[in-house]
C-alpha cells in the first residue's frame, strides 16, 4: 500500500475552527459536506477537527441566533461526530448566551459528554456583561472560548449582532484566566484592525481560518501577536486553510513556531487530554 504524504506537510495539525452540518439543518447535502471535510482533512493531514454545529443552520432559527430548541440537537450531532470519529473529531458546545440559564445547563451537559471548548457566535455583542456567566462557566470547565468575530465592526451587518477584536479584548480583559480564540482573521473585515486591537491582550489567540488569503495577513499576524498566539484553522474553506499552511512554510517561521501554530498552541489551551494522540504539552 502506498503511503501518500499529507498535503499540509508532516507533523500534527489541529483545525480549531471546523463545522459539521446536520440532518435537521438547512442543507440537504449535509452528509456529503461532512464526508468531504473528513476526506479533505485526511489528505491535508488534519489530526483533529475541533468542530461546532450552529443550531439548524438557519432552518428553524437564524444561524447566529440559534434557539434553545435548535441548540440541543446541534450539539448532540457534534458530539455524535466525536463519538463516531474518536481519533479525528472533537466538539465545541455552541450556545446562544441570551438564554443564559439554558446555556449554562447546556454547557454542563455537553462537557459531561465530551465537549472540549465553548463556541459563541453573534447573538450578543461580546463586551456585554450578559456573557460573563457563560465565560465564568467556561473557566470552571477549563474550556477555551472560540468567538465569532467580524474584523473591524464599522456598522451593523444583517443577521448578526457582531463583535470585533476590540469588543473581544474587553471581554478577555474581564476574564484573564480564560483562553479566547478570535475567529477567522481571514473571515471578513479588516484584520489589520484586529491585530492592533488585541496585540496587548495575551489571553486572545487568533485563528487563521476563513476564505480570505490576503498576502501579508499571515506575516502581520505573526508580527502582531507572535507564533505562540496563532492557531491554524480552516472554517468552511479547507482550500484556503491548505494555502495558508503552505504559506506558513515560506514566511520564515522556525520549526518550533510552525509546530506552535499547527498544533501545540491548541494543545496548550484546550483541556488536558483533549487530543490523546498528540504528545503532552505544557499548558498555558
Amino acid at each position: 500500500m502506498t503511503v501518500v504524504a499529507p498535503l499540509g506537510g508532516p507533523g500534527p495539525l489541529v483545525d480549531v475552527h471546523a463545522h459539521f452540518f446536520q440532518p435537521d439543518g438547512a442543507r440537504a447535502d449535509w452528509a456529503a459536506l461532512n464526508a468531504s471535510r473528513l476526506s479533505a482533512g485526511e489528505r491535508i493531514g488534519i489530526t483533529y477537527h475541533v468542530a461546532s454545529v450552529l443550531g439548524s443552520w438557519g432552518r428553524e432559527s437564524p444561524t447566529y441566533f440559534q434557539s434553545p430548541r435548535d441548540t440541543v440537537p446541534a450539539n448532540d450531532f457534534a458530539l455524535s461526530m466525536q463519538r463516531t470519529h474518536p481519533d479525528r473529531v472533537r466538539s465545541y458546545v455552541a450556545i446562544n448566551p441570551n438564554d443564559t440559564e439554558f446555556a449554562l445547563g447546556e454547557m454542563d451537559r455537553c462537557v459531561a459528554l465530551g465537549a472540549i471548548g465553548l463556541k459563541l457566535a453573534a447573538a450578543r455583542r461580546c463586551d456585554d456583561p450578559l456573557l460573563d456567566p457563560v465565560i465564568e462557566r467556561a473557566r470552571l470547565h477549563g474550556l477555551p472560548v472560540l468567538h465569532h468575530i467580524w474584523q473591524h465592526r464599522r456598522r451593523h451587518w444583517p443577521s448578526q449582532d457582531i463583535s470585533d477584536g476590540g469588543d473581544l479584548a474587553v471581554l478577555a480583559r474581564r476574564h484573564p484566566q480564560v483562553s479566547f480564540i478570535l475567529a477567522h482573521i481571514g473571515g471578513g473585515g479588516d484584520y489589520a484592525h484586529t491585530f492592533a486591537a488585541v496585540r496587548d491582550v495575551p489571553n486572545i489567540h487568533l485563528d487563521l481560518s476563513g476564505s480570505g488569503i490576503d498576502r501579508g495577513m499571515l506575516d502581520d499576524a505573526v508580527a502582531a501577536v507572535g507564533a505562540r498566539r496563532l492557531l491554524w484553522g480552516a472554517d468552511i474553506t479547507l482550500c484556503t486553510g491548505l494555502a495558508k499552511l503552505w504559506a506558513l512554510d515560506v514566511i520564515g517561521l522556525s520549526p518550533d513556531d510552525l509546530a506552535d501554530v499547527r498544533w501545540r498552541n491548541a494543545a496548550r489551551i484546550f483541556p488536558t487530554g483533549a487530543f490523546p494522540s498528540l504528545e503532552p504539552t505544557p499548558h498555558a
Partner: protein
Amino acid sequence: MPNDSREEAADRARPSPARTPRPTPRPTPVPGLPSPVSLDVNTFIGAFPYRHLPHPDPDVLVRVLAREGVARAWVGHLPSAFHRDPSAGNAELLRALGPFAEVLRPAPVVRPDWPGWRESLGALVAAGVPAIRAYPQLWGMAAGDRQLVALAEACAGARCALVLTVRFEDLRQRHSLDVAPDLSAAHVRELARAAPGGRLVVTAAGKEFIEEVHWGLTPAERAHVFYDFSWIWGPPTDELAQLFRTIGSERFVYGTMWPLRLTQGARANLALLPGGGAGDALADVRGW
C-alpha cells in the same frame, strides 16, 4: 505566498543589475500541481490604494512563479486600474517588465472611452502584449456599453485576450472609499455575445457568477470565455469540483491574483480536487 516579507527581504538585499535581462529561475515541480503550470493569467505589479502590499515587484514575482512551478504570467499594473488615464501606467508596466520578458508578459489597460484608445491598443498590440485589461465597473460603464463592446471587438480582431476583474478584495473588508460595485455577470454576457470571436478571461469570479455567465450563453459564445479560480472554494462545499463537472475544466485557467492574494490558493484548490485534479485538464493556453 503571504508577505513572504522575510524571505523576500533577504532576496532583495542581494545586488541585482537593473534594466538588463536577468537569468530566469526555472519553475520546478511542486506538490499539488501537474507542474509546471504554463501560465498565470492574473498577476499584477504595483501598489494597491487601499492597503499595503509587500514587495509587489517584478523581480519578486519571477521568484514566486519559479517557486510555485509556474512558467509565465500575464501581469497587470495595479495602480492603473484606478487611474483615469492609464497611459502612464502602461508605459511604466512595459518598462518594469522589460528585463523579465521571458517570464512576465504585460497586460496593460485600454479604456475605450478615452480619446485615441484605438491607437493605444494598436501600439500595445504591436509591442506584443498578449492581453488587455479593462475595468468597466471602475469606469462607470454599464453592461452592454457600446464603447466596451467596441473594445472587445477590437481585441478580438487583434487576437488579444480581454481580461476582466470581478473584484480586488472581499466586499467585507473594503475601504470606505472603495465603493465601486463588482463587475456584473451581465457585463460578461454582453461582451461574449457582442464579440464572439474574441477571448474573454474573467478573473476573481465566484461560482454563482460563473454559472450565470456560462448558462446564459450559447455553446459558441461560451467557447470564448475563460475563468480563473482564484475566488472559488474547494472542500467541503467543493465548488471547483462541481464547476469542473458541470461546465468543464477546460473553461478554466490558472490565476492567483498575486500580489493581492496568496499564490498558494490556486494550487491548493487543484490539489484538493478528487484525485488531486489529475483528470482535469485546464484550458489549453499554448499560444496565449
